[in-house]
């Protein structure tokens, strides 16, 4: 071959307009998976404050003045955190639903309607998230 | 320079089978092909492979059908070789894993086909050729046979002795499409041409764009005679807008042809009172065109092929591919409506003259497959008889070239004492009268006296390099596409199913004019990377020769036999014409002669009978 032309990155994500259902599902699943594992790390880090609380004065703990409780409650009082939590829920729900779809595909079930099941996951995710917003935002001070 | 024992040119069914056989016989083989092997047009074959496999059938019946189908222009020894060895070769394919359709007992399925007295067409859905091609290529991969794909063979490296029978072939020169390199391939034992069909001389054809008859033209210009070129098969059921084939399998399974009046015309108008739709292809094609010409065609162009009554299950099981073709290429749902069909160029019965081992009269040069004429099809090929030809003669040629002793051939190749010189009255001079006379008799040859095998190859290489450069260096003139289109048009108008003397002559004039224009052809694309224009320009040169051979042959044969119908001579003339039309390139122009058809087989002689279906 004398020479050839490599069209590089435009090939991949630059073509998103041309993606089909299965490819979007793949991208979303990837994205949500990464968010979840990222969250798992931060989640454990935050929860680790419990280690100090465990060795703290029981009275402080009883009064909910320990580091863990304080941290959690401080975080939970922030609107931004609540919004992020809604986002997390969306991510988790989609990952669960699409994950279920993928498990079915792995079992060879419903391959013919894989695109419809993807749209169903999306819609269901949306519905669940919207329905949960009141619960998630309850009691937050603006 | 590449060097191998055997060079196979072309990697369709015939080329692949011969490469495998030569390699099994111990030769070091390379294949040179202008398309990647799986792109070869063998993949388009739909209907099936004839082989006498079952109780109640035998090779003799198959041979009889073939001789009758050929209208007694085939050579019996070749036909008998074909029919005797086809079963073994088909089973070999099965052992190589070919995905044949199956009967309930797990054996390969067979179906009825036109002109056959027994349902012996072994098939794999309606895509038999695809499976055959891929199965053979798989075996080539398995054996690690070297394949130079997308290398276009420009010419043969042959010596230049005055008598073609004394020439020898030592290799080929090819052009690598991707880079524009011209390279030589020397063949120590021999070259096998397997370049396939030539349908591109017509504009309505079932053949691929790559089917430009290169091998026939190359061998012809090297001095090898071509045989029965006027015998072109027109398939009765092709889709009108593209020429895509609707397999004979449809009629084999029970599909029916109707004209615009809803008549089943093959019966109702008496074209084939016994076999109807399953009459031989030439009969059905003429019947359709007669219907159209007499005003009973649909939209004055085609007739209807109906398979709806077969029922969805049977159609999907056996003819699924046909549904896709009708849908994609004609927008017709074969389950709901009849399919429009008309005759289209399909197959060349004639080709490079060979004996039953694929040998030509030039030493070390073989030809197999559609480009060759071992003379098994005569004046008309039966459906399902081409694929067995590929594997039977492919194998024979492969073994022979690798040095296996297969005995003496019964059919002789080249000019023999019983050959008969001939002349035809033509309106223009043929060939290339302006070509410099005297120096080279064979186009591309190197003079024998001084030549060693290597110098022959080297000189051919030099010439071809020059030719390519010349084409690329010129920057004005005519472009090949116009010339090609003109040839296709005149052939389709004048050298079609119905042939008339004045029209044939007009075609020769047109071809001559096209040749004149080709003299200042040039290639506009200066690139050496994947220059398809250059390749097509060279192909067009080959088409000119092919068109002329066909037309001259058609003009010479003033009788009606098989696929060849002449308006002025509507009867078969057995006294005069049980002979092959031969055309050889000599000193820049075609020379015509005849040699007798061999009707004497192993145990009996096939007496010409009236051919009615």
């Amino acid at each position, binding site marked *: *071959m*004398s020479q*050839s*032309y*490599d*069209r590089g990155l435009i*090939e*991949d994500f630059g073509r998103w307009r*041309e993606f*089909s259902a*299965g*490819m979007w599902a*793949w991208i979303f699943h990837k994205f949500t998976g990464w968010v979840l594992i990222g969250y798992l790390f931060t989640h454990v880090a935050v929860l680790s404050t419990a280690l100090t609380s465990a060795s703290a004065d029981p009275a402080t703990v009883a009064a909910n003045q320990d580091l863990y409780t304080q941290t959690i409650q401080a975080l939970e009082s922030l609107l931004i955190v609540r919004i992020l939590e809604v986002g997390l829920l969306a991510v988790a729900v989609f990952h669960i639903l699409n994950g279920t779809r*993928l498990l079915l*595909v792995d079992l*060879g079930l419903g391959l013919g309607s*894989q695109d419809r099941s993807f749209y169903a996951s999306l819609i269901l995710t949306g519905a669940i998230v919207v329905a949960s917003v009141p619960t998630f935002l309850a009691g937050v001070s603006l | 320079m590449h060097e191998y024992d055997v060079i196979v040119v072309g990697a369709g069914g015939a080329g692949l089978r011969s490469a495998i056989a030569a390699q099994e016989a111990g030769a070091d083989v390379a294949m040179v092909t202008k*398309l990647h092997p*799986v*792109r*070869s047009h063998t*993949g*388009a074959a739909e209907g099936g492979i004839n082989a006498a496999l079952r109780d109640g059938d035998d090779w003799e019946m198959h041979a009889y059908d073939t001789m009758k189908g050929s209208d007694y222009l085939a050579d019996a020894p070749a036909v008998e070789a074909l029919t005797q060895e086809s079963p*073994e070769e088909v*089973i070999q394919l099965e*052992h*190589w*894993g070919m*995905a044949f359709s*199956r009967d309930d007992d*797990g*054996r390969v399925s067979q179906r009825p086909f036109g002109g056959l007295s027994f349902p012996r067409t072994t098939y794999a859905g309606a895509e038999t050729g*695809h499976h055959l091609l891929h*199965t053979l290529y798989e075996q080539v991969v*398995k054996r690690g046979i070297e394949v130079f794909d997308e290398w276009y063979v420009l010419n043969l490296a042959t010596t230049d002795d005055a008598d073609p029978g004394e020439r020898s072939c030592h290799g080929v020169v090819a052009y690598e499409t991707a880079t524009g390199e011209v390279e030589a391939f020397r063949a120590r034992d021999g070259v096998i041409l397997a370049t396939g069909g030539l349908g591109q001389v017509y504009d309505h054809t079932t053949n*691929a*764009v790559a089917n430009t008859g290169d091998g026939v033209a190359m061998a012809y210009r090297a001095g090898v005679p071509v045989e029965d070129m006027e015998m072109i098969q027109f398939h009765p059921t092709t889709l009108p*807008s*593209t020429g895509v084939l609707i397999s004979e399998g449809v009629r084999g399974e029970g599909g029916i042809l109707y004209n615009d009046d809803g008549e089943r015309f093959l019966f109702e108008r008496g074209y084939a009172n016994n076999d109807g739709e399953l009459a031989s292809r030439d009969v059905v094609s003429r019947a359709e065109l007669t219907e159209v010409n007499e005003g009973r065609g649909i939209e004055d162009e085609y007739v209807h092929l109906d398979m709806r009554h077969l029922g969805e299950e049977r159609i999907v099981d056996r003819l699924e591919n046909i549904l896709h*073709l009708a849908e994609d290429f004609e927008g017709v749902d074969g389950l709901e409506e009849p399919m429009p069909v008309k005759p289209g160029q399909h197959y060349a019965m004639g080709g490079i003259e060979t004996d039953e081992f694929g040998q030509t009269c030039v030493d070390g040069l073989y030809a197999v497959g559609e480009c060759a004429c071992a003379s098994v099809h005569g004046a008309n090929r039966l459906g399902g008889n081409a694929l067995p030809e590929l594997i039977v003669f492919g194998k024979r040629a492969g073994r022979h070239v690798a040095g296996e002793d297969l005995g003496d051939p019964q059919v002789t190749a080249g000019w023999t004492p019983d*050959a008969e010189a001939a*002349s035809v*009255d033509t*309106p*223009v*001079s043929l060939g290339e009268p302006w070509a410099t006379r005297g120096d080279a008799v064979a186009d591309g040859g190197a003079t024998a006296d001084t030549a060693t095998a290597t110098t022959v190859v080297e000189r051919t290489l030099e010439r071809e390099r020059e030719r390519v450069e010349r084409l690329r260096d010129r920057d004005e003139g005519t*472009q090949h596409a116009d010339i090609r289109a003109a040839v296709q048009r005149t052939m389709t108008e004048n050298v079609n199913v119905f042939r008339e003397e004045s029209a044939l002559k007009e075609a020769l004039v*047109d071809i001559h*004019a096209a040749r004149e224009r080709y003299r200042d052809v040039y290639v*506009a*694309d*200066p*690139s050496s*990377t*994947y220059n*398809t224009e250059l390749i097509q320009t060279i192909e067009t040169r080959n088409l000119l020769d092919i068109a002329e051979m066909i037309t*001259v042959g058609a003009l010479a044969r003033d009788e009606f036999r098989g696929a060849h119908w002449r308006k002025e001579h509507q009867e078969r003339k057995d006294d005069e014409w049980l002979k092959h039309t031969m055309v050889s390139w*000599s*000193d820049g122009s075609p020379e*015509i002669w005849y040699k007798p058809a061999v009707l004497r087989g192993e145990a009996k002689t096939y007496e010409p009978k009236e051919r009615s279906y």
Partner: protein
Amino acid sequence: MSTQRQNPETETDNAEAEADTETETERNEVARRRAEQRERERVKENERATADAERYHLKVFRYDPEVEGKQEPRFDDFHVPYEQGMTVLDALIYARDEFDVSLTFRHSCRQAICGSDALFVNGRQRLGCQTQLSDLDQPVRIEPLPHQEVVKDLVVDMEHFYDQMESVEPYFQTTDRPEGELEEQRQSRENREQIKTSTRCIWCGACMSSCNVAAGDNEYLGPAAINKAYRFAMDEREGEEVKQRRLEIIEQEHGVWRCQTQFSCTEVCPKDIPLTEHIQELKREAVKSNLKFW
């Protein structure tokens, strides 16, 4: 004219021969002029017809490493007169023959069987010959297959694809052949039915080009090669032993496990091969056979 006789040494009267050639040249000349006249009329008629025709607007990717002005890839516009039933391939052929002879693309069979002309048409891998222009929005954007290197214009380098196809031992292997001459191996209709779609692959490369995983992982076998492996692994004629070997091949690191069930391969396959389904089935087969051995 009488054609060449076999014996070239035959003496002919020189003067006569000369005269003969003279009239012959004249005759040739007249005939040729007539032919040219006919040709010109045809061309004119053609022109008239195309002038009236509705035109389709094509935008075609152009690139040639050697030709100035084409080294930087660009899109060229062609306006092709439309005819009933015209395919993308027909339009390209027209554009090449009438407007720009250097326009380069692979094609051969025109009937969706040779697999040469897989192209990226309006954002999707399709066979040019199998795609009706009338099914497409204008302008029709035609590009070479994504994820493959472009050699020139619409021609891509297929080597890698071929290598992948050939790496799965794509040939029939069996340990038991039936006894006796002319005995075929038996295969049930069900089994033939099971492998039927998988045997239809025409090596067009559309699937591989559409798969994002194949684009990222150069060693991934890709859907077509896996499908080829499926064709053999599921063929009962090969027998259990060979099947195990086949499973080992497709189970390699860059085999079936790389597939993320994007389904785009299945969507673009011009032969409607359910590729994802085949890949998934092989994954399960592999797991099953491994569980047996654990």
